[in-house]
């Protein structure tokens, strides 16, 4: 099945699901549409009538999302679902583009694409009205821009996506590191390392190799390259520009609901995180600074080590970081899984993991521990049974499953830096690779 047919079939599936969702909402007690979609729609209708979207309680997103959904009030309430599903398909297109640029064979591209397009979790999330596909599309577009040497574009979209969702801030250091002067020259298209078959790594030596003591000063000063400085400045400027604009419009409500809430969020209600019961049991007193730091330390350490080890293999680094970020977060909801599902197809062609039986065991373990958690969650929330302890143990098992799966993926991954080292002539002006990019 070629890519065009896959995308067409996926588009049809999503349209049918959206139509079915409208029917279910009108005729059944349990709605198909996500509660969050109602929040976005209410906020959008407030914006359409000239009011602040933050008058809608639990709206904790950038006003941009409400602006995007204004046609919900003008054209049709399902406009947002079509927009999110279109972003979902765009993610598929971008996955194919990235794999094609790295010369992955067409059959592997198609398989990897199907992992995204036909993942039940993926196609339900956009059609139910969740906005995560937009974020995923932006992140993949940033990777494409970097692969094409378009640093300014990548910086713009990166600043925008961090404003929109905050969590992509974890990708800042790997992006800066991958703009290695040995691989990336501003204004020129970098040489991409191609897929060379599973089990064989590329020839280039990772640029994160430790320099000798005499070259440390040189290494430090060479870190500040034009590409890196421009990326940092432009993305920072875009982030602060959007943040400043919406602060001007909506004041502290915007700052608190869209930004500060996410940075300080501790939710005592049950969720997949191992911390939920600990937070609930200690909610009556404020957490001390030491307690907050201790709970942040695992997250910080894992992110740091993953960046140091895998930054040059950018898609893999993004994937591993996202899995770890979600697993160690204080609050985990099912929509966060999309953040790494969109990156999974980018690393599959470089994985030596066989579906039988390692792959299957990872899938079954991850889904099994999730189902186990959901069972206890159902008993607590819908049957009123006191199963807090069992639910918390289920969340620990889910963390163990996430850790196991991540370890297996690291173990079977063929490390492949995104960019090849550039070769320079003695004049340093005559590059042998690539052509000028915008």
């Amino acid at each position, binding site marked *: 099945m070629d890519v065009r047919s896959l995308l067409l079939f996926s588009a049809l599936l999503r349209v049918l699901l959206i139509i079915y969702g409208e029917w279910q909402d009108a005729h059944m007690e349990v709605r198909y549409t996500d509660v969050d979609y109602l929040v976005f729609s209410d906020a959008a209708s407030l*914006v359409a009538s*000239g009011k*602040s979207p*933050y*008058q*809608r309680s639990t709206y904790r997103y950038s*006003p*941009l999302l409400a*602006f995007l959904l*204004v046609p919900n009030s003008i054209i049709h309430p399902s406009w947002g679902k079509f927009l999110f599903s279109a972003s979902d398909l765009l993610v598929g297109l971008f996955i194919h583009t990235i794999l*094609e*640029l790295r010369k992955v064979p067409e059959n592997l591209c198609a398989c990897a694409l199907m992992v995204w397009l036909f993942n039940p979790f993926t196609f339900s999330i956009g059609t139910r009205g969740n906005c995560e596909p937009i974020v995923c599309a932006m992140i993949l577009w940033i990777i494409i821009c970097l692969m*094409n040497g378009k640093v300014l574009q990548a910086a713009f979209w990166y600043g*925008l996506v961090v404003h929109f969702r905050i969590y992509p801030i974890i990708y800042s250091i790997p992006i800066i590191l991958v703009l290695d002067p040995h691989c990336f020259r501003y204004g020129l298209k970098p040489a991409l390392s191609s897929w060379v078959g599973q089990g064989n*790594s590329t*020839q*280039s*030596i990772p640029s994160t*190799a430790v320099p000798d003591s005499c070259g440390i000063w040189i290494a430090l000063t060479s870190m500040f390259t034009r590409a890196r400085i421009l990326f940092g400045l432009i993305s920072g400027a875009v982030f602060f520009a959007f943040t400043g*604009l919406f602060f001007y*419009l*909506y004041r502290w409500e915007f700052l608190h609901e869209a930004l500060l809430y996410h940075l300080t969020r501790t939710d*005592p*209600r049950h969720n997949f995180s*191992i911390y939920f*019961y*600990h937070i609930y*049991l*200690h*909610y*009556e007193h404020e957490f001390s600074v030491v307690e907050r730091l*201790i709970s942040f*330390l*695992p997250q910080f350490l*894992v992110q740091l*080590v*993953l960046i140091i*080890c*895998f930054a040059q293999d950018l898609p893999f680094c993004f994937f*591993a970081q996202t899995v*770890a970020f979600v697993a160690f977060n204080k609050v985990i909801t099912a929509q966060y899984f999309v953040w790494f599902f969109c990156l999974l197809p980018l690393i599959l062609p470089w994985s030596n993991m066989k579906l039988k039986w390692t792959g299957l065991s990872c899938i079954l373990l991850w889904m099994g521990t999730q189902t186990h958690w959901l069972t206890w969650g159902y008993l*607590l*929330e*819908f049957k*009123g*049974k*006191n*199963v*807090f*302890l069992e639910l918390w143990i289920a969340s*620990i098992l889910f*963390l*163990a499953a*996430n*850790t196991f799966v991540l*370890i297996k993926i*690291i*173990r079977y991954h063929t*490390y492949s830096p995104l960019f090849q080292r550039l070769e320079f002539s003695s004049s340093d002006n005559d590059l042998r690779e690539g052509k000028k990019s*915008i």
Partner: protein
Amino acid sequence: MPPSTVSYHMESWQHVQVHICRILGIQLIFLVGFGFCMSSSFVSCEVGRCTSNVGSTNQSLNIPPYFEKYITKSYFDKYDSLLDSDFLDFISHELFPGSCELLLDNLNLVLRLSVQQRSLIGDGSHRHLSSSFRFNIQSELIAELPIHFCEAIIIEKLPYGIFADPFELQHLLQRGVFMDAAVFGDTNLELPSVHSNRSLVEVHMDVDLNTFSRHKDGLEINIDLPLHIRYPPLEESGYSSIELGAPDLFMRCSIEAKSHNQSCLLMLKDNGVALGNGPVVWRVPSGIKAHARAVSIVTFISAILSTLSIVLTSVYYSSTKLCKNLKQS
């Protein structure tokens, strides 16, 4: 496919992608500008008050409470939180300053209330409070009163730990389940009991006294109110019991006067008829304080073990791959 064809297709595709990017960028700028224009005239409003007034548009500060669309709105204009004693004072001194004494006396003769049934339907954290109220009507007197229109107003003062979702109520309004409904007080849907305040639900139901006066059994009003539970404070037993008190019932009638129609508010008290099935109690699972220490220790040990596993695996396999690369080069 020959490399030149591949590179041609790739270049064309890259041009298309640049075009898509430009279109998306222009649309983004347009949307931001559009949103800026729309927002330049937005009404500044406190979130708590605005979201608690589903469908309310009454901005006047000088209208007596019994004339306002929602009679309890002015309570929260004056008080920060819901206290039973303050609410009783509010009912006595602000809801009934007296302008319809004659009508109210007559209505008291005409209507007799008996609360028939009240129960919580469902299990778990999301249930429905089902209430049924019966009014006995003296039909021969009702026709003599200059009543234009009546509505029953039911006020549920929710205890700590129980809340109603104003957006869910709005959905029910759109479906015509209630004539009007609003939530006042603490409408934060996410906080546990410990950090939240009480709230109050005001529901309006249409009542046609003339139609119901022809029925021998009188007037019956049934209300099914969806309610949700907050995480309760910790308990040794693992369960917390929350009792729902009786509602306050009012009848507001619009009467025909010479120059204009006038609203009269009547508070309906039960005849001392006991509730068919006793007080309504909601039993909620709660965290057990004795678990606190063990849960904290095991949580952090689990986090540390997971961290160490990932860190060691990453360092080991990235060094192995680095050595392999160096050997190959």
